[in-house]
């Protein structure tokens, strides 16, 4: 029998994969343990389900819904802006410059983006002033920290459109010109080319773009804290409040677990859905 040679390559995985696995698994472990009453800072550490009883409050569901809704809306609105924009950009002279300018918000840190947008949508910000001067509104709109979360949504869209734009633009650009020509040559008009060639080929990229933005936005803390409503706030913020303001780490842990579960559930449902659409 041939003896299997030990694959030394696996040792090389330790610095990169090992580092990530160690810390991610450690935080997961501590989170789960704390949600069941272990690892307490003060007092006794013992198994308990009481925190799970407390977690499902009105606030929790409001905040969870807020984060979920903001994430979903951001991902969908951004892709609705990006798809046609990428298509138009393909045909415009000087598109390289356009793309470079469009990329700027992606490189703006979340907090800065939040500040920049808040600055112009504020009660006396330039947007309100212009709308007033145009006599479209009688009195400034409250867009920042508004109850509907338009402020946070605007910041998220501002920051995430470029991100999806790059994915979509390169996906469309990657379709060889020959392939489109071939379709036209065989009798496809512009609409058919879009429907038969461009959209099916770029759909996987669009699905990835949507899910990436969803996850990023769902996990957000800083933007909704600075531009979002005071109530409800993001689920990350609720977790933070429980941990630091109420010093109730166990409930914070439960919220963390729920966040993970929601994320995973959504991503699984979504990939199931996109597989179905794909076929």
């Amino acid at each position: 029998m041939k003896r299997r040679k030990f694959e030394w390559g696996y040792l090389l995985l330790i610095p990169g994969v090992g580092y990530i696995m160690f810390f991610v698994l450690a935080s997961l472990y501590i989170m789960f343990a704390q949600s069941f009453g272990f690892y307490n800072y003060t007092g006794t550490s013992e198994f308990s389900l009481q925190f799970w009883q407390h977690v499902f409050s009105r606030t929790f569901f409001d905040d969870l819904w807020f984060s979920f809704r903001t994430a979903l809306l951001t991902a969908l609105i951004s892709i609705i802006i990006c798809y046609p924009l990428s298509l138009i950009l393909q045909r415009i002279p000087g598109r390289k410059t356009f793309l470079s300018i469009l990329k700027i918000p992606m490189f703006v840190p979340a907090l800065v983006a939040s500040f920049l947008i808040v600055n112009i949508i504020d009660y006396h910000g330039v947007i309100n002033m212009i709308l007033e001067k145009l006599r479209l509104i009688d009195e400034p709109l409250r867009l920042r920290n508004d109850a509907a979360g338009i402020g946070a949504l605007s910041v998220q869209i501002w920051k995430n459109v470029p991100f999806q734009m790059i994915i979509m633009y390169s996906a469309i650009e990657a379709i060889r010109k020959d392939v489109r020509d071939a379709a036209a040559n065989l009798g496809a008009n512009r609409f058919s080319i879009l429907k038969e060639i461009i959209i099916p080929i770029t759909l996987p990229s669009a699905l990835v773009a949507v899910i990436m933005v969803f996850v990023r936005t769902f996990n957000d803390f800083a933007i909704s804290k600075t531009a979002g409503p005071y109530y409800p706030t993001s689920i990350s913020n609720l977790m933070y409040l429980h941990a630091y303001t109420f010093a109730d780490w166990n409930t914070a842990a439960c919220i963390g677990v729920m966040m993970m579960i929601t994320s995973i559930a959504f991503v699984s449902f979504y990939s199931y859905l996109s597989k179905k659409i794909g076929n």
Partner: protein
Amino acid sequence: MNGQLIKSQKKLTRRLLELLLPFGLLSIIMVWIGLPILYALLWSLVNPEYPWSYPDLFPTNLSLFQWEYVFKYTTIVKSIGNSFFLAFLTTIACFMLALPTAYALGKRKLKGSEFFKIIILLPMVFPGMAMGLFLGRMLHVMGVSGTYWGVVIVHTLVALPYMLRILIVNFESMPQDLIDAASNLGAGNWVKFTEIYFPMILPGLVAGAMFTFITSMEEFNLTFIVGAPDITTIPTVLYSYLGENFLRTRASVVSLILLIPNLLFLIVAERKIKTEYMGAALGKM
């Protein structure tokens, strides 16, 4: 005759549209991106003696007062120093951790490498605040909470996926033929490393280092929880200005300071970084 005229008219409208469309689009994009930055710039230049208030569209008097103030009387200089120092250390740590692993995943056909490539994505999808809180707990126990070490550990965790993914793509796109050709022409391991591998991963390294640096510079959640209040960086300072004591003028200055390295990065990236690395870093799968 008539047909000719209609044809030339059609052509003219098309030309006109071709000119107008980019122009219109450019204006929209400029407003979309330029306006927020312009207003931050204006706010940072407001002279406190002549406050800028409703309904003026522009401030009446400009001065560098706020910039001077922020640099003179706040801890911003120290925070900028911290930010750069931490970014530097993080980049080195990421580089050293990522190189062997990226080589193994990109060049050696290991069983299960697809699985490991997914594991690498975890820090990108794990909720930052949750990781901050509970990892922070562990770092606290380890006694590195509130130290440079602690912050470098978490920054490395967040930035490592970018470096890894870029280097993996880099290693994967390195044609095996080329390496074999070098061996075939008599190159030993050392020559192969210095003359083939190293020059070929250099672009990936540069791209990865830039992404790592920027990620560390703008990381907020984990820095805030693990580092504060002892270690402040530019984002945590900005957060303090955006919170309860919201001070628009000062926040403008700090925002712009935080914007500068990123915009420089963008300019360099546009010229130097291949799009495939951008794609890899952004998580295109």
